[in-house]
């Protein structure tokens, strides 16, 4: 049961490791389970989701089936594809390529297509609107791609969906998912104040020195070069606004700079764009990773059935994932009937 893992959160996001990870199946199951718990649910997505055929791969996709009383936010062009009886509650003024986002209450059960806003601030505002109409819990369906990961920043917890569609190799599925979960749940950074992090116009890359002072990385210097200079010998921490990429870190690792006990921090786990190898090398060299907005991973769901025909052993996938992450793991194809319509 997913319900015990996700109840109690004001807002929850669902993110997928790949297409066909079973994200919509998970969403449908949550809706189904939360209905019997009497939770007044509100739903939206980052960008478009919920179409019956996957636009990218052409495989058939489940629709999102909601129950009477659920509140949804979706772009106005999507309304014709929602077969619930609709009550329009609000027009938000958030525009998307599919029209302005409207907020509706379902006056019957039915299928919906979600296409919500994609800006973090708008998603946060939408959660407020939902609550003003009496929602107990907001679920944000993240589309696939890196930007989907901005969903955790506006939700209290996240459910990470993965499965056989990610890779033919079960090791890759397990290891990469565990790594994504690890990045999302990195600890809170320890060196920077709220004001320093949120200050507008802050430099892209800042150092916190041993004596507590802050310095910006000059445009003329690469991070790797700066860290080798005497001037920057007392660096305690680095804060990167924007992405922390492999291209940024590789020269540091190769350059032999002393990064023992240096805290490398980003805004949230979605800004860390490097692979496990780099993560391990950083650990060996004694650097710590941290984020300004840590995210709680409420559960990992696995879908052992691949859209491309390479199915996996569900039990093995489940137990290995559990073992490696220490997080609750649910097989979306296992217990009970599929909620797929």
């Amino acid at each position: 049961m997913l319900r015990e893992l996700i109840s109690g959160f004001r807002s929850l996001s669902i993110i997928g490791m790949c297409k066909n990870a079973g994200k919509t199946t998970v969403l449908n199951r949550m809706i189904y389970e939360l209905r019997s718990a009497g939770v007044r649910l509100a739903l939206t997505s980052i960008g478009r989701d919920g179409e019956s055929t996957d636009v990218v791969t052409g495989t058939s996709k489940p629709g999102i089936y909601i129950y009477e009383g659920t509140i949804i936010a979706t772009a106005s062009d999507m309304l014709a594809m929602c077969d619930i009886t609709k009550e329009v509650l609000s027009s938000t003024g958030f525009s998307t390529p599919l029209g302005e986002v409207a907020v509706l209450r379902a006056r019957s059960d039915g299928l919906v297509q979600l296409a919500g806003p994609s800006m973090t601030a708008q998603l946060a505002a939408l959660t407020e609107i939902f609550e003003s109409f009496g929602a107990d819990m907001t679920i944000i369906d993240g589309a696939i791609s890196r930007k989907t990961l901005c969903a955790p920043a506006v939700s209290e917890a996240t459910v990470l969906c993965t499965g056989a569609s990610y890779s033919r190799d079960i090791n890759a599925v397990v290891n990469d998912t565990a790594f994504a979960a690890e990045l999302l749940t990195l600890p809170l950074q320890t060196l920077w104040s709220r004001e320093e992090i949120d200050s507008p116009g802050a430099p892209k890359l800042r150092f916190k020195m041993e004596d507590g002072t802050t310095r910006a990385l000059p445009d003329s210097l690469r991070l790797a070069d700066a860290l080798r200079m005497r001037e920057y010998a007392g660096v305690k921490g680095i804060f990167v606004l924007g992405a922390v990429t492999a291209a940024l870190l590789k020269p540091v690792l190769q350059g032999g700079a002393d990064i023992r006990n240096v805290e490398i921090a980003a805004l949230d786990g979605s800004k860390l764009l490097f692979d496990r190898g780099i993560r391990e090398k950083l650990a060996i060299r004694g650097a710590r990773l941290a984020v300004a907005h840590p995210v709680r991973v409420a559960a990992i769901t696995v879908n052992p059935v691949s859209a491309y025909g390479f199915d996996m052993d569900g039990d093995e996938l489940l137990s290995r994932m559990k073992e490696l992450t220490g997080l609750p793991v649910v097989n979306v194809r296992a217990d009970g009937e599929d909620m797929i319509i």
Partner: protein
Amino acid sequence: MMDFSQQTNIGFRYVTDALETDSPLGRARVTSMRFFEPGEEAELLTELSNVKLAADTLEEYSEEYSRVERILMTLKDIRRSLESLREATLSEVELFELKRFCLASVYLSEAFAKLLLKAPIKGISITPETAALDVLDPEKTRTATFFIPDSASKELLSSRKDKRAIEEKLRRAQSGGERTKLMAERSAIAAREDAEERRLRSLICEGLRPYIDDMLSCINNIASLDFTLSRAKLAAKYGACMPCLTDNEIDMAEMINPRVRDSLYSRGRAFTPVSISTPAGATVITGANMGGKSVALKTLALNALLVKAGMLPFAKRARLPLFSEIFIVSEDMEDVDRGLSSFGAEIVQFNETLAGAESASGICMILLDEFARGTNPEEGAMIVRAVTRKLNASRHICALTTHYDGVAQFASAHYEVAGLRDMDMAEVAREIASSGTEGGADIIASHMNYGLYPATGSESCPRDARNICALLSLDPSILEDIR
């Protein structure tokens, strides 16, 4: 008429940008602002006295005003939906927005009626769009959401009932196969419901069509109200007066220019208000460098243009005609793209101004800032004298700033900026010495008297330039040579 960059230069755009409207309808009115033409005096005075009334009563009746403003803030611009309603059937979201607008018009008309009891604003009437609202909300629930009720038609009721029955079965369905079958059935009924809703929506739209023009006129009145309130708030902020329209003379007391004022204020300095009265013909303004002659001219242009745009002038007293056109010829506004030298461009611009003023039906305001300053002083002075003679004979109101001697004798009025006339040179020199030369210009500015005074006696321009050079530590050998 002044182009955009000229409007920006005199501080007019700064004022319009500072107008705080509450709704997109008011904002649209600001962006499509119109200028009043001679002949429309009565209409202009009604608008201006509304703005004045609101500005004077904003504080006293703040409760009534803020109730109106709170409703204005909820409004969206639905004009596009109303236009498409003429031909097409609107979506449920568009109908929702229409209903929200009609509801808001009901609340707004009540709030506005209460305000009118206190502040009798004329010429704006907010009618509640109840007839249109009844079409959108036949059961008169007046809820702020849009929903077509089951009772709207028999077919709607029956399709929704059938749909619900299947949904109940679906909730209890045990097997995937059963569910798939039920879903197929459900989707057929949902299509029936959808078709019926669409039919009902088109009926609603048909019912709304007779009220489109009423609603557009309501929007127009709301925009006028919002625009009026925004002008009143700005007038209250900077201090403004009700102007008196004259035939062909101006008498302006203590005008300010918000852009210059705010910029001085942010540097800890005050703006010296500008007063000027002139009959038709030419007025000459002379005075020291750095003395604020150009600012005086821009402030005059700004306030005349504000009145033309239906805004109160920022002044203590304002008597002026409703100008046909306001021209300002200035080197810092010239169009460099035309590839003329600054002097050439100025002459071309002045020609166009003269031609424009000639063909104008009413009185124009013509302002020349340091005309012909780019040429040699001897010829420059001759040009400006001739131009002054020409302008002084015209029916328009013209003002020129100049450095040249012997110009004022050809004008009907002569003003000068006091400049450094009353300044204690030794005191300023000490101040500059103690702060280092970099702050010199600022210190001089803080001692400069920017006031505009009717010129007394001496015909020639004041000789402050050398004093300023001395204070700013120009090379002593040069300074000695100037004497």
